[in-house]
């Protein structure tokens, strides 16, 4: 067994990128994710990589596009306002089917907001964001170890599906420390990239683009993308499920609230309350089936988020129609403590709204 080091979430993520073979980082500072560029500025040059302190987030995402088009693993990271500025670029990456890893260590919004942790950008990452019919693959680490492991996974998925992949973590996950194994669990996968632009030497020219002007070309393209997203939904769901066997109430949460929920669930169980947990690790693809099946059995769901209610809509859609769903949200840097969640558990078990 490899030794675990007390590691900060952001650092685990940055080291994960290096170990995933990412050698190109472009970014513009913003709290609370500056550990990532700062770590990579120090360490990428040591392994022959390139770190550019870009002039903006727009430049960053487009530099990522250039490096990614070259067939290289490339990444950028930011938070709220900076991620908003990347939306055009992300849409282009999706439209031209280029891999890229984009990290959002979430702080409060809207606007300049604050630097405290939230999950206010769930919808932006999972549903909205850029223009057009596209999806990001979205991973939501819940521990420092996952900040490392899922970063590697993010690069693999991005390459496998030629799709932008976002890692979203509230600032708490980025800032806290835990023991972490800083070597990959299994050898990192590197899919072939027969689409990469590397100079046409001895082959046909290649093209990466997102403009389709021919009659119905764009519709076909959109339908192909949709097919790809369906395949991702089919194959790539990652979810953690705990104590569901006898659960009468299931908490659904990701990131920090999921951790708080675990503690609250232990407290509830000590009081004899039958509570379980579903923690989506992939937000897209969303663990729709799992939620459907288990909500059918358990009947009651409690969604806990650090926002005013975003993932809860996906849960509503996924859940069995007879399931009753409660929501507990703390936006803007307020976060739930275990006993807050315990109180919500009790409320939900006593009835709670549909």
């Amino acid at each position, binding site marked *: 067994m490899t030794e675990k080091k007390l590691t900060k979430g952001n650092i685990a993520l940055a080291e994960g990128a290096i170990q995933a073979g990412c050698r190109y980082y*472009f970014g513009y500072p913003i709290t609370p994710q500056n550990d990532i560029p700062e770590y990579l500025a120090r360490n990428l040059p040591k392994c022959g990589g*390139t770190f*550019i302190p870009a*002039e903006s987030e727009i430049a960053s995402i*487009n530099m990522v596009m*250039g490096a990614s088009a070259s067939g290289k693993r490339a990444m950028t990271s930011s938070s709220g306002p900076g991620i908003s500025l990347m939306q055009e670029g992300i849409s282009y990456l999706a439209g031209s089917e280029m891999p890229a890893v984009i990290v959002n260590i979430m702080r409060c919004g809207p606007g300049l907001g604050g630097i405290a942790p939230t999950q206010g950008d769930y919808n932006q990452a999972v549903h909205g964001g850029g223009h057009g019919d596209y999806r990001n693959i979205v991973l939501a680490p819940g521990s420092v170890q996952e900040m490392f492991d899922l970063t590697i996974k993010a690069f693999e998925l991005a390459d496998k599906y030629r799709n932008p992949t976002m890692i979203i973590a509230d600032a708490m996950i980025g800032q806290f420390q835990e023991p972490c194994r800083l070597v990959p669990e299994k050898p990192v996968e590197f899919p072939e990239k027969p689409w990469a632009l590397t100079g046409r030497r001895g082959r046909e020219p290649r093209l990466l683009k997102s403009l389709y002007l021919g009659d119905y070309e764009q519709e076909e393209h959109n339908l192909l993308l949709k097919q790809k997203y369906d395949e991702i939904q089919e194959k790539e769901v990652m979810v953690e499920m705990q104590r569901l066997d006898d659960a009468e109430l299931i908490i659904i949460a990701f990131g920090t609230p999921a951790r708080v929920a675990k503690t609250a669930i232990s407290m509830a169980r000590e009081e004899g309350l039958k509570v379980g947990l579903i923690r989506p690790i992939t937000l897209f693809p969303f663990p729709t089936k799992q939620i459907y099946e288990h909500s059918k059995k358990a009947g009651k769901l409690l969604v806990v988020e650090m926002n005013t209610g975003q993932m809860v809509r996906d849960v509503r859609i996924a859940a069995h129609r007879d399931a009753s769903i409660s929501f507990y949200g703390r936006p803007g840097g307020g976060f739930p403590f275990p006993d807050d969640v315990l109180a919500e558990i009790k409320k939900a078990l006593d009835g709670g709204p549909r």
Partner: protein
Amino acid sequence: MNAIFKRPDSLTDAPTHFCPGCTHGIAHRLIAEAMDELGITDRTIGIPGVGCCVFLYRYFPIDALEAPHGRAPACATGMKRAQPENIIFAYQGDGDMAAIGTSEIIHAANRGENITVFFINNSVYGMTGGQMAPTTLLGQQTTTSPYGRDFNTEGYPIKMAEMLATLEGVAYSTRVALHSPKHVNQAKRAIRKAFEMQINEMGFSMVEMLSTCNTNWRVTPLEALQMIEREMIPYFPLGVFKERTGKDFL
């Protein structure tokens, strides 16, 4: 008899989508000729901006990346860093470079990225129907300056070649025009030189070309050529604004 002038190998057979008499077409051919002459076609990657140049990949038989509007210099930066052994060029219009992409071009230039940028200045947003650009001439009527550009409210046309030349990282910045055989030949030399700068790793090179958009200027192709001479050159003087002769920045 032998062909003493034929379509360069680095131009595909595809007929262009350009309007009749649009000098984008001349710029394309010159770039293709330069690639032929320098033997770099196999290792050149083109990055069109968004504008009438967006179909660049149809005309050059090379790898190409379609950049978001204005961001070609940033894409080129990422690409050149990732594959310094290849030749990377961006091709931008004045909307693309001098308006929405101002920040990206300035910082790519300032970092001295070893890339080449071809800049078609036709004083309007051609592709979207001829709206006012930062390069639109004073008094010029466009669909969004229907009463003529007025410096009191819209300022003066921006001179990219001059502005970029002030940046340390720039190896080569020049302005040429595409409206007469003499000028076209000059432009050709400038394009070649710009590629050579990159091949020799001298840093950022940029060729601004005064070009026509007769469609949106609402004149005939020939009148458009005359307007370059008569109206554009007086404000946008031709010349080399910066040319590094050695790696003197080292």
